[in-house]
Structures are given as structure tokens and as C-alpha cells.
């Protein structure tokens, strides 16, 4: 189960988004991921740890290397959650519609 708070926090940083964009192309090692950035490999490793803890990426051991890849389904799960929150807002407004309609009916009642 992914940690949605951690996932969204992880997505709030441009370097981590760029790392995810690179991983969307396929598996990559820390060295490969560090290449486009002007930051150190340990800094990249820290970003990778956050992404891993958030459940967005997974790492496997291959000799001395630990290549990273996107976790299958991670974004689908976030998308599902986002859709749920949008529905929550729509639920609120649908409730307000009913409340306003009920008041309207009551108002008409007293006028008659």
C-alpha cells in the first residue's frame, strides 16, 4: 500500500518529478539519474529514498547497483484518490443543492 501523503509530498519537488519523468522511460541507476542534474549523487539518493518510501518507485539489487523503476500502478492509485476527492466536492455541492431546494420549497409554502 502506498503512502498517499508521502506520494503527493514527493511530487511537490521539481527534481523528484524530473526523476519520475526519466523513470517513465524505463529503469535507471543512480548514476544515470544524477547525470542531467547539477546536484550530487547523495542528494539524488535522498530524493530516491523519498520516492521509494512514498511507494512511487521500487529498487532491485543487481550486483553493486540498485536500479530504480516506477512502481506499477502507483499513479493509478493516486488518480483514484484524486477522483475520490473531486467526488467529495461534488457531493458537498449536491448536498447544498438539496438544502437550497428544501428552503425554496419551505419559502413557497409560507407564502401561500
Amino acid at each position, binding site marked *: 500500500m502506498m503512502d498517499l501523503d508521502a506520494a503527493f509530498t514527493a511530487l511537490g519537488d521539481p527534481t523528484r*518529478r524530473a526523476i519520475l519523468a*526519466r523513470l517513465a522511460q524505463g529503469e535507471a541507476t543512480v548514476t544515470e539519474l544524477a547525470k542531467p542534474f547539477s546536484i550530487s549523487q547523495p542528494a539524488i539518493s535522498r530524493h530516491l529514498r523519498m520516492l521509494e518510501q512514498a511507494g512511487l518507485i521500487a529498487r532491485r539489487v543487481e550486483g553493486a547497483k540498485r536500479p530504480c523503476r516506477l512502481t506499477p500502478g502507483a499513479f493509478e492509485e493516486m488518480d483514484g484518490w484524486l477522483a475520490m476527492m473531486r*467526488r*467529495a*466536492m461534488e*457531493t458537498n455541492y449536491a448536498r447544498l443543492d438539496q438544502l437550497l*431546494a428544501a*428552503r425554496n420549497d419551505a419559502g413557497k409554502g409560507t407564502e401561500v
Partner: protein
Amino acid sequence: MSKLTIATDGETHVLITRRFAAPPEEVFRAHTDPEWMQQWLLGPDGWTMPVCISEPWAGGRIRFEWCDGKGGGFYLTGEYVELDPPHRIVHVERMHLPDPTPDNHVETLLEADGDGTMLRMRMTLPDAETRTAMLATGMEHGMEASYARLESTFTGQLK
């Protein structure tokens, strides 16, 4: 078809529109009177708002506490900045999860639209990162973000 629209504007704004079949006076009251708010501003089914403080005057307090009925919940605090009943509400809010999120400045405009009201809400976040985080975690206001949007963010980063 959903009547709700949510869109981003510039780096730090979020725009929301929704039409209601009631005059601005009623919609204004629904957005400022605690007794009304506790009946609809609840999020997913099963949630309640046991605490609702709304002091609709400049400098007045806002505090909403939500419960999921299973021991979970969170709260929001804020202040009213300016009110022009029944057409305009300006307030600041932050969620406590439990750490406070950066201030969200919200302007709510209510215009008569035929026999109803068009609500236009403009949120202003301190910076683009905060907006991204809010779109992603906004419990109360929901968000527009979608898989397609995430993908376009990624594509943008690759260029």
C-alpha cells in the same frame, strides 16, 4: 454531467465555478452561516462537522473540524478578510493535517445568473509548489489534477 469546473490559472491560482438554483442571498448564507455549513460542507458520505465556527465579518474567525466517524479527522482554521453580502467573500484558510498548510487566500464571488447564482471561487496559493500540493491533498475543496495532468507535468520536465 458535472456542473463543477476546476482549473488552474497562472502559477498559483485555482479557479472553481459552480451554478446553484437559488439567489445569491441564499448561497451567500450557505457559505457563511454555521448552521447551514454543517449540513453540506462535509466531504465524503459518513463525515460530519461537529465544530463549525464562522464569524462572517472582517477579521472574524473560521474553524471547521471534520470527523470520519471512525476516530479520524482534521481541521481547518482561517479568518475572514472582507465581506460584501451577498456577492463577495474574501477569506484566508489553512488545513491542519496536523501541521498547518500554507495560507490559501480565497475570493468567492456570487453573481445572479437568471433565477440562480453563479459561484466563482479564486484561490491564491503562495507559490506553485504549494498549489501542486494543495491540488493533490485538498480535502475540502477537491482538485482538478488528473493522470493526464501528472503526465503533462512529467513531459514538461523532460523538455
